[in-house]
């Protein structure tokens, strides 16, 4: 596999993050699960996240067995599936939302495989710009990694606190858009405290790549976002938004507004 990190005019995600970096701003990546709490409110949430300051929206494709997710996102996936949400339904939702910010599909591999080989083209046509696959680490499946890496979507790769340096370099060489740095060992979910060694983790990634670095897993509160913004290019907030949306879309939008304010007032 050759390097696919070169930015082209179609790299909407990379361009957006580069523009933020030029302006000295930090990216707010907001996650929601497609179809949660139901289709209508999911659509309202997508638009609300964009309108209240999200720079990038990660749309979770609900999966029956989400290994990398904690209880909040597990329950949101379950609820979305019970409401009949599918990958095709997720793409229709993104298309209908017609967002003015880049959209990254956040999926497990199995629904992507089941959707067929033209799913990346269909996603691009629906207004998706990037794709992130939680259970497809570098080298796990070269053929499918090539499919994702050479397709129309920017293939965002994840790195973990356990990833050794030489592997970090190899992963980031194959990534596009941004590098998703998992902040801590474990699954998605809110944390009271950020890991003490997070600045060093960010520095380790910074040493091997020029791609923007966004930090996720365990980031939920505005002051945490602000603290991460001192070191990273952006933050990803998921479970806290999903938990707020469990009860009210407005509450999730208010959280995004507070996160935006915190990130901009560093």
């Amino acid at each position, binding site marked *: 596999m050759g390097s696919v990190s070169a930015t082209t005019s179609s790299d909407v995600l990379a361009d957006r993050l580069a523009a933020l970096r030029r302006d000295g701003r930090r990216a707010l990546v907001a996650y929601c699960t497609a179809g949660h709490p139901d289709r209508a409110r999911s659509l309202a949430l997508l638009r609300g996240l964009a309108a209240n300051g999200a720079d990038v929206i990660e749309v979770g494709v609900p999966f029956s*067995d989400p290994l990398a997710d904690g209880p909040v996102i597990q329950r949101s996936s379950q609820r979305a*599936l019970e409401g009949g949400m599918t990958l095709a339904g997720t793409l229709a939702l993104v298309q209908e939302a017609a967002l003015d910010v880049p959209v990254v599909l956040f999926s497990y591999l199995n629904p992507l*495989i089941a959707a067929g080989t033209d799913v990346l083209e269909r996603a691009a046509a629906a207004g998706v710009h990037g794709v992130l696959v939680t259970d497809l*680490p570098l080298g*796990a499946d070269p053929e499918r990694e090539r499919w994702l890496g050479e397709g129309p979507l920017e293939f965002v790769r994840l790195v973990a606190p356990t990833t050794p340096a030489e592997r970090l370099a190899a992963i980031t060489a194959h990534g596009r858009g941004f590098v998703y740095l*998992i902040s801590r*060992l*474990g699954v998605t979910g809110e944390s009271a405290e950020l890991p003490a060694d997070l600045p060093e983790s960010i520095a380790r990634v910074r040493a091997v790549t020029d791609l923007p670095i966004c930090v996720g897993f365990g980031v939920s509160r505005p002051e945490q976002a602000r603290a991460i913004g001192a070191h990273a290019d952006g933050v990803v907030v998921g479970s806290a938004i999903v938990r707020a949306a469990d009860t009210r879309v407005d509450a999730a939008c208010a959280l995004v507004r507070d996160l935006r304010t915190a990130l901009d007032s560093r």
Partner: protein
Amino acid sequence: MSTVQIEERFGAFGGRYVPETLIPALDELTAAYRAAMADPVFTRELDDALRHYVGRPSALSSAPRFSALIGATVWLKREDLNHTGAHKINNALAQAMLAVRMGKRRIIAETGAGQHGVATATACARLGLECVVYMGEEDMRRQSLNVFRMRLLGATIVPVTSGTRTLKDATSEAIRDWVTTCPTSHYIIGSVVGPAPYPAMVREFQACVGREARAQLLERTGGLPRTVVACVGGGSNAMGIFHAFVPDAAVELIGVEAAGEGLQTDRHSASLSLGSPGVLHGALSLLLQDANGQVHPAHSVSAGLDYPGVGPEHAHLRTTGRATYVAVTDAEALEGFKLLARLEGVIPALETSHAVAWLAANRGRWSASDHILLCVSGRGDKDVAQVSEMGILAT
């Protein structure tokens, strides 16, 4: 000691489809496993433990009354006689010893029927390791005796209430624990499933079953069996008994899956018979799933077979045609349970009962001079409460 074989893929199947966080842990495990198997001190300690603690080699019993019914000579490989009552201890003890070698003092396990949980709790008690077992709430109800045994052995049981509350969700929850604790914990997976190196490593730790049986049969009958039969959920007892016979092309290998309420219904666990390629729990294998790639809940009367996936090597053996996979319903399995008890004085696990029932349903298929090897993967004591509630003796 020869170098151990650690396939990352079996044909198109297998692999390491896990969150990035686990990749270094899987690399570390692969290296530690390879080094341990090349270390005569480790292999001698493992052999000693299998011999003097587990009770290996397990007996190979003739089964004259059952053989008369089948119309060929059936031999029972008695994994039910192992310490803790099933083949599961072979793998659990070996992995626990490997964990000690890796300096990991906390063990995670998933369990369905409870046999792997009991085996892991047992190994941890013996080696002084902390043990956390994830078990679906539904399975805890079905297998309350094993829950008590695990607690008695000092393990912590974590009830899993997500999804179908069975083995599938217990496995997901165990993997989530491991993603969080991998620098200090070892995950003892109970079957030939999961990301590499687990399918190859668990197969190797269970391969003693087939190696012993092959030698025992050669000694007792002077030849190899016509057919080897084992039940398949995740498939560890089947891989364990098949492995030594895979190069013996004339030996037919039959894996018996759970057809639950029938293959024509959507309540079964027959991933090899009716599944399609998909990724679950870190491996690409055959999987029960819907058109959207969502995993379809499995069903079986037997908690140990109630799993929508299967080990990737079985998917490969099915694809190449080296092994044949068939399925037996809940009702047929219950008949098999009673049959082996009445004819041979061996109460088989409900899992094993599927293999017994397939033989009974196919009686007359062999010539009188044929030998058949049946893996009695576990004993049925754990199942008697559940089966007695079903009123089996009334029939």
